[in-house]
């Protein structure tokens, strides 16, 4: 019993160790890319942070360890060293990999629904809500019939009695 507990503790420690040693790897990936101008270095970091890695998909190019992401970081670095602008780098990547490399899709006819769909939904919901409320208000209050009126009086009289 003690033995198995020790074993599982050891396993847990090893797992924790493995997680700890792999985690900081991200921090080092951009170290090798520096420019003489610190602003340019920052621009490189921002840009790779905004572009999506195609293999892992939910990581940016800056954070990904995938081989393709490393290649693209090198390529972007090379282009920026040549003095190409941020937009030129983005255009280069979109031309080859499509809009998918951008986290934010560009505004064009095929993406209109993506950009404005949610607002349409909310607008439609607000319209329905307003209409329902309006209709509720407009509904005429129905008069009670003679029998109902008599019953109501009776009930009111009863509760009145109890409080006396």
């Amino acid at each position: 019993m003690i033995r198995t507990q020790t074993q599982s503790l050891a396993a847990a420690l090893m797992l924790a160790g493995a997680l700890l040693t792999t985690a900081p790897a991200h921090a080092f990936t951009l170290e090798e890319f520096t420019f003489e101008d610190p602003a340019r270095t920052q621009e490189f970091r921002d840009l790779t942070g905004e572009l999506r890695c195609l293999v892992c998909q939910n990581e940016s190019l800056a954070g990904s360890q995938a081989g393709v992401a490393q290649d693209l970081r090198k390529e972007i670095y090379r282009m920026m060293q040549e003095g190409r602008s941020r937009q030129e780098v983005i255009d280069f990547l979109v031309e080859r990999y499509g809009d998918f490399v951008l986290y934010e899709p560009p505004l064009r006819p095929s993406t209109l629904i993506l950009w404005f769909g949610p607002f349409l939904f909310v607008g439609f919901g607000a319209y329905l809500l307003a209409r329902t409320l309006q209709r509720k208000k407009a509904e005429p209050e129905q008069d009670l019939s003679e029998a109902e009126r008599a019953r109501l009086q009776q009930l009111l009289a009863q509760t009145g009695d109890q409080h006396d």
Partner: protein
Amino acid sequence: MNTSAKRALIPLGIFLALAALLFYGLQLDPRKIPSPLVDKPAPEFSLPDLKDPNQTLTRDILIGQVSLVNVWASWCPSCRQEHAELMRIAREHGVRVIGFNWKDTRPEALAMLQRYGDPYTVSLYDPDNQAGIDWGIYGAPETFIVDAEGIIRHKRVGPIDAQVWAEEIRPIVARYQGGKP
């Protein structure tokens, strides 16, 4: 049907429409990224031949007949999986299959061809992803269908098996080979 019953059907209709939309979304594979290169000329390249390092291959090799350009590497298990199918296609269907050996090493790539056979008329050798970036390659295997004029007509991401060949690749190849569907 009276109006209130009709009105009750509206939420049901909206629910069914949403369900259909979400179900459709589930069928889509997020790993399959449409290539912006389809219907554009294949990118220029200048790469060594995998087997003969002294030989330089350029885009010119794509001109003249329809080709499958198959991105592969010895480290890629799915490439090994589709290898037999590529051998069959090259043998039985007379389609030219051009290899695009990607991010691999020459000895290991050659060892794989030696071991499993070589379906490729010729294999480009791109160990550093030099031309791969221009082709928008982001994994292996990927297969491009390039027509006789050197224009990319289709891109398949993932391995080709008998079903993919019959349903997806062959009709497109046939269309550009003879003008018949």
